[in-house]
């Protein structure tokens, strides 16, 4: 059996190494490292986790265990316009689920997936604190308040041309 190879671009490798170094390569800083890394790459693919594990001198199984434990970390690239639907209780009682269903229907993807053209991805999050605007939808950093299922199409239209 030959040894396992991890393929990665040199530039990316150095980026990850730098991030790890900025946290003194301490295994205890794993979550901070993952945050920074995901910020850089948009997601945490296997090879990135391999490098992080190596740099922090910990097992990649543990890294994977942490990545999959926290919902903030993702191993799939997000869409160009990540759509997050707040499914906090306030939004729920004001009909967030119907809004979510409508997004799913229109985009033909499930939560956690990205459209084939890479444009939109769908996720749920818990309470963004804009309960006065419930139900709330985020597209990237932009917040849409008091969204109804009928309004979904309109929101998507805004981004379709971009």
């Amino acid at each position: 059996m030959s040894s396992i190879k991890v393929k990665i671009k040199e530039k990316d490798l150095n980026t990850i190494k730098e991030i790890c170094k900025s946290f003194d390569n301490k295994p205890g800083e794993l979550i901070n490292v993952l945050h920074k890394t995901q910020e850089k790459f948009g997601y945490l693919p296997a090879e990135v986790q391999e490098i992080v594990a190596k740099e922090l001198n910990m097992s990649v199984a543990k890294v994977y265990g942490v990545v999959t434990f926290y919902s903030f970390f993702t191993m799939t690239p997000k869409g160009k316009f990540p759509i997050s639907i707040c499914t906090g209780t306030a939004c729920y009682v004001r009909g967030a689920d119907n809004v979510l269903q409508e997004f799913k229907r229109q985009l033909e993807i499930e939560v956690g997936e990205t459209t084939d053209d890479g444009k939109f991805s769908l996720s749920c999050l818990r309470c963004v604190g804009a309960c006065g605007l419930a139900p709330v939808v985020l597209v990237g950093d932009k917040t849409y308040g008091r969204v109804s299922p009928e309004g979904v199409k309109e929101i998507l239209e805004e981004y379709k041309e971009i």
Partner: protein
Amino acid sequence: MNKVKLTIDDKQIEVEQGTTIYKAAKELGIEIPTLCYMNLEGLNIENKPGGCRICVVEVEGRNNLAPSCSTNVWDGMVVNTHSMRVINARRTVMEFILSDHPKDCLTCPKSGSCELQDMATKLGIREIPGQEYAEMSTYKTDFSPSIIRDLDKCIMCRRCEMMCNEFQTVGALSAFHRGFESAVGPAFEMDLEHSSCTYCGQCVAVCPTGALTEKDHTRDVINALSDPTKKVIVQTAPAVRAALGEEFGMEAGTLVTGKMVSALRRLGFDYVFDTDFAADLTIMEEGTELLDRITKYLGGDKEVKLPMLTSCCPAWVSFFEHHFPEMKDIPSTARSPQQMFGSIAKTYFADKISTKREDLIVVSIMPCLAKKYEAQRDEFKVDDNPDVDFSISTRELAHLIKEANLDLNILPDEDFDKPLGESSGAGVIFGTTGGVIEAAVRTAYELHTGKKLEKLDFEQLRGFEAIRKATVDFDGTPINIGIAHGLGNARKLLEEIKEGKSEFHAIEIMSCPGGCIGGGGQPLHHSDSSILKARSEAIYREDAGKPIRKSHENPYIIKLYEEFLGKPMSEKAHHLLHTAYFDKSKKIEMS
């Protein structure tokens, strides 16, 4: 230590402060059922996540039920382990666990020795309410060369994770995902083959269910035995004879060497041989290599690598190949006894019985799962024909024997066949921690000093302590010896070597708790460490009863060198009995 008094099920007991309810109850003879809790006493191996919640008990004054495995007693505590509240809770929790567990007990490899199955029986579970609409968590099954992982059967006891990370420090396994989807496995849920797994099999040894089992080769063995064109020979590792009896209801530590031979012969093996023979051969090679290195070192050679590390344990070999590749030239180059046997069998012995290599099938009975992987390593093949065709575990052998309608209890004692069945007591003790080095010392001492050893039992090398150190006087030359069992302990010694702080000339390493007697292929100890101790004692008993107790005095070893190999470390010996190691650490490649 302060003592505290408490009441469990109306019985009074006084125990040391810091004792758990579980342990206190045990002292009273109350066995509180658990699934995740595991304690190998004396080996410093404890799994106490408090996760299964089967062991809950009622404690007066506490709102909810307490997990007895991880709740400490206090003075005046009143515990009830069987109130209806407890019984209902325990049963409901068990129903939860079973509702997410496949019901294919009939064909499950663990059936009959499954702790979950036993628990279901004990708690009288007849049906799982709501099973018809209960979703089950499913995962893909992993078929590695040694270990099968069927995570559908994982109950998240975390024992394997603890063994892999804390005891072995291999880090191949971790819990992943969370909640209902969580299970334990390698990174990215890949197969073990793509991980740093050493196949030590300790995860299998502790798994309470059928989630982790050995890759079964009994069907291959049956096929081989049914093929009239093949000669099928078998070798049995030293630790097998000290544990096989347990599968047939015998007390732990019962030696069944003769009965085992007799069973194997009845199963139809053409020759029944002993890996102990190859262990003697290993001592000849490894002992000579050690002496060679020490002599060079004492002669001022700065290049020579010391300490020398043993290399009989395939999980240990994988461990340094994965985790310490920079040190791969430190261990002895001697192959493991299993592989030495295969190599000699398919050359020397095949010639003797005038059988072509491809018509000779070598089967090994091993206490070990890593041996399955070792047997199929490329270095141990000639024209794609492996030196050892199939390696089966003690448990698999027990299945074969039972399948053949044989009762080990009433089989007569028989002797191994010659020539590869003869062994010394030194070969036998390979099965327990400290044994390899003791065997090596017996031979190396006599070869080095030319004197006869007065006392063959080196008590200071024996025992279950994690890391042991001893100095043996080689007639004026003090030889420092280190022994570690468990890869976590081995890691400590390796780190010392890496830092240049090691004081040792030779180090023996075995991956499993207690050595091979505690291997991943042995009958399950169900977290009773006294079983391991009994096996170890049995091994030393077998040694003590042997007429020959030093490898170099084994007449068939002497004969093998005379007829075939020449002398230890000869070119032929090198070719057939030694190997090289490979860097298996992860490589980062730029793209």
